[in-house]
């Protein structure tokens, strides 16, 4: 069974004269353990699609099933971990209390929560920063806290909207590698929005290329680079070939529109 199955989804914002067709006829099936990147020009509906999958907004029509259930039910079951471009940490909570927040809401005992938070902080390599406050961390460290928080309750599906978009290139590549390691260890299915072609190619099992106005999927490119991926992966001729392929698919979407 697919983790995510999207059929004939449309999303229209606004009323008659000022309508925006954000998504048109989206069909996509995501299998367990996949790493899917959504890439496309600004305003093509990547965030909207991600938010529809996570049931933060509902589609105008069409069906989204997550592990066979409607998206709202999956959300009630806490099957989503969400990471935004900004870390969205709570300033008044320490790092560990931030990571524990979902667990508090889910009613775990303090000792369970603390153990789990420590485990997650180890996963994102922030051991020793438990008692720090968000303002005491760099941007990249804050984003790792938000990843730890999203993973803390073991969601089967991780939704990430440009999580590394605000970071510098070096931090970004390091976090890419870290994310792949986490993905391998937790076996979470990941849907990842990005503007960076190399990032999409390096991380993904499939890259979904979208075009704007109306937002639709133009091409789905399987990434057949060997796993596990590391710095050497970025040097492979196949890597460059795939980067070129995604770039051309993006151009195709652009020229088809214009």
């Amino acid at each position, binding site marked *: 069974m697919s983790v995510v199955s999207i059929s004939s989804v449309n999303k229209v914002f606004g009323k008659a004269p000022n309508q925006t067709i954000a998504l048109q006829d989206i069909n996509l099936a995501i299998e367990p353990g996949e790493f899917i990147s959504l890439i496309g020009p600004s305003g093509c509906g990547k965030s909207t699609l991600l938010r529809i999958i996570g049931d933060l907004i509902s589609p105008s029509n069409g069906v989204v099933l997550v592990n066979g259930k409607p998206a709202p039910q999956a959300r009630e079951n806490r099957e989503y971990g*969400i990471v935004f471009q900004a870390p969205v940490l709570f*300033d008044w909570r320490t790092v560990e209390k931030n990571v524990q927040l979902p667990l508090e809401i889910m009613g775990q005992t303090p000792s369970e929560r603390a153990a789990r938070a420590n485990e997650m902080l180890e996963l994102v390599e922030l051991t020793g920063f438990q008692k720090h406050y968000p303002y005491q961390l760099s941007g990249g460290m804050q984003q790792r806290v938000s990843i730890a928080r999203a993973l803390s309750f073991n969601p089967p599906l991780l939704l990430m909207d440009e999580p590394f978009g605000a970071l510098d290139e070096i931090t970004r590549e390091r976090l890419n590698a870290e994310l792949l390691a986490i993905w391998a260890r937790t076996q979470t299915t990941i849907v990842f929005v990005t503007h960076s072609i190399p990032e999409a190619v390096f991380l993904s099992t499939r890259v979904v290329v979208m075009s704007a106005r109306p937002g639709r999927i133009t091409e789905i490119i399987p990434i057949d680079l060997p796993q596990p991926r590391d710095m050497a992966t970025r040097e492979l001729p196949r890597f460059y070939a795939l980067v070129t392929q995604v770039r051309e698919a993006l151009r195709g979407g652009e020229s088809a529109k214009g």
Partner: protein
Amino acid sequence: MTDSSLPGALVADAEHDVMDVLGADVAVPQPNRFSDGVKIVLRFVAVFALAMLVWELVKFIGGTPWRYTTAEGALFDFTWFPPFEFKIANDLNMPHLWDIFGALIQPAQRNGPPLVNVLAQAAVVTMAAALVGFIIGTAVGLLLGTIFAHSPLLERSLVPYVVASQTIPILAIAPMVVVWLKAGWWSVALLAAYLCFFPVTINTLRGLRSPDPRALELMKSYAATTWATLWKVRYPSALPYIFTALKIAATTSVVGAIIGELPSGIREGLGGAILNFNQYYAIVPQKLWATIIFTAIVGILFFISITLVERVMTRNMRKLES
């Protein structure tokens, strides 16, 4: 990772542990927290001293001529004729500070206790009513703000009435309250509460709406209840807004209590003292001025208490602003 070189890593862990033992979810007290409070008080005293200096300076330049002597015909006999004559600065409008402070230690009535004792007792009466009014007003404000934040329908239909309530002068409300509760201490507290609840309502509403929409989306993705979202995200985010309102409410509660004393027939409070000394202003203005100083001190005490509580409760949020 090599990030541990960052200055935050130097923060002493011992303090965190203490807070953990106390079970505090928020906050690490910084070592200079106490001196922060002292600073607030010192700054206030300094400004007060400056104000007194200016007061006497104005009188020195344009006040009523005055004479100082220990006794008639004594060696030390000094008279000052100010170069100008400002009507505002004459002894009736602006009594000398020594006259005001002198009035404090003289008996308020013949053979009675000194004025300072009378006023201190009056201040306690007024403060008690103001405090109860403040608590009631704050509770009502928090409740209304919380309800409005969750119900746009109630917000739209009731907020206009909340606003309207504040355009009705308290003097028009007072007779109703007094008839309802019988004249007395509780009607004073209720009138103070009536002035307090408004800023608290409005700012609670704003504060509860202030969190980052994505923070609320995260809570949605955790399938958090409205209640959990309220306590874990909305109230903490609203604290700075709520404290701003509490500072306003703290001072208005004193005004409310003083005004409320008049129709409630309470004569033991500062309101009673003001009413009383108003009648003798033309003869002994310093008594009314002494009362004004006491009233101001009560308001400032309230204000400073709230500021200190705010500093403790929002200490981790303030760091972001700077």
